């Protein structure tokens, strides 16, 4: 689509910023079992921090920003996400 020079739209792409980055305080983190994941994206819809990223029909967790709240593990209909203790 060719857009003219004066056209400007109030849209941004989601981007990394220092603001929401998780420190060293996370206790548990979600781990996706790709054998079970059906790609329904329920976790993506419910993640309050938008750290679940859809990729190749399944989901990936952005651990840099994940707070380990466990909402994703709870909403997963096939129990593909388990909360694992941080090392």
């Amino acid at each position, binding site marked *: 689509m060719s857009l*003219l020079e004066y056209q400007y739209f109030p849209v941004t792409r*989601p981007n990394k910023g220092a603001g929401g980055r998780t420190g060293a305080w996370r206790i548990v983190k979600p781990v996706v079992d790709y054998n079970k994941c059906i790609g329904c994206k329920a976790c993506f819809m419910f993640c309050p921090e938008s750290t679940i990223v859809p990729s190749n029909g399944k989901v990936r967790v952005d651990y840099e920003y994940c707070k380990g709240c466990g909402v994703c593990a709870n909403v997963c209909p096939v129990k593909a996400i388990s909360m694992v203790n941080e090392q």
Partner: protein
Amino acid sequence: MIRKVISGNEAVALGVKLARVGVTGIYPITPQTTIIEKLAEMRAKGEIETEIVRVESEHSAMAATFGAALGGVRAFTATASQGLLYMHEMIWWVAGSRVPVVMVVGTRAVGAPWNIWNEHTDFTSERDSGWIMAFASNPQEALDLTLQAFRISEDERVFLPMMVGMDGFILSHTKTNVLIPDQEQVDDFLLPRRQPYVIDPEDPIGMGNIFPPEGYMRLRESIDLALRNSEDIIKEIGREYNKKINPLGDYSTLNVSYKLEDADYAIVLMGAWAGDAMEAVDTLREKGIKIGMLRIRYLRPWSEKEIRNALKDKRAVLVLDRSTSFGRGGGPLYVEVKSTISDIVPQIKGVVSGLGGVTVNKSELLYIFNKFVEGLKDDVIWYYPKEVGKIELRTPRDIE
């Protein structure tokens, strides 16, 4: 193409049907109600596929329409008066988001006090919101402008929402002969929907978020430029509409001139009373008075070039307002016209009339025009066709 005797509201509903609108956010308000009643009826009969979203208020109606448009379908809503004012916030959100949406406004007086009759104040009060604003003068034009609105707002050089005004009751409920285009003609005229961006879980975007001051200001400038540049695009699309759909209507210009070329005096107005004004102009012409009329069809973009060109070398110009701009001594149209032509026309007068359904027909207009040609003393007058009864004011303490 068929001819049918229908009301303005039915004409708009048929336009929505022909444009294959995907989602309609609806909330009924007089005098727009029959548009959505007609749409609901067509939906119940299975004639249209439009998803009709019933909401709790006009604010939500615009929000639902906005959301649907962001999702990538053609979206439509209609409102009037208090409903339009209730939408005011969402109207700015849509324009600021640069998303194509089409709305029809059945114009009506604004309270208090309650008054359901026709005037233009609700419509003109949205003129700074960034929408393209057209105003129809008959049901045929209401249909034509609604169809063109989809094409104009979805043009990549524009990407702005568009509202079409239509005099409440005078057009919305009065049945006249309307030329209804065929589906094939409209499909040929309307291109597949285009929009600047779309909400999509596979490709997420952030919208409606905080913008830094400079980015915000750049967006405002871009809206202004897109609106002003839309003038040529509207003419281009209008010419195509003439060719493909309605050869009888002339949409190659933004505003419509009537007997203006050799006129000494000019009337400027907007909306349905243009018909009566044209008859009044004819009557005065028979008496040998050189008078003409300019009907503003597009309040935004305001075509400065076209209006200056139409009104140059006129002895005097009279602007008729069916709307108010309190504290300014004249309606919004008067202020706009005066700022456009004050250096080339020596005398610019204004009349505010027809508010809240006050009847202004040919005889009243003739009276006004005659007074104007004789020479009005005041710059702006408020004209009442009848004497207004005195109302005695009482304080609550007096009532016992």
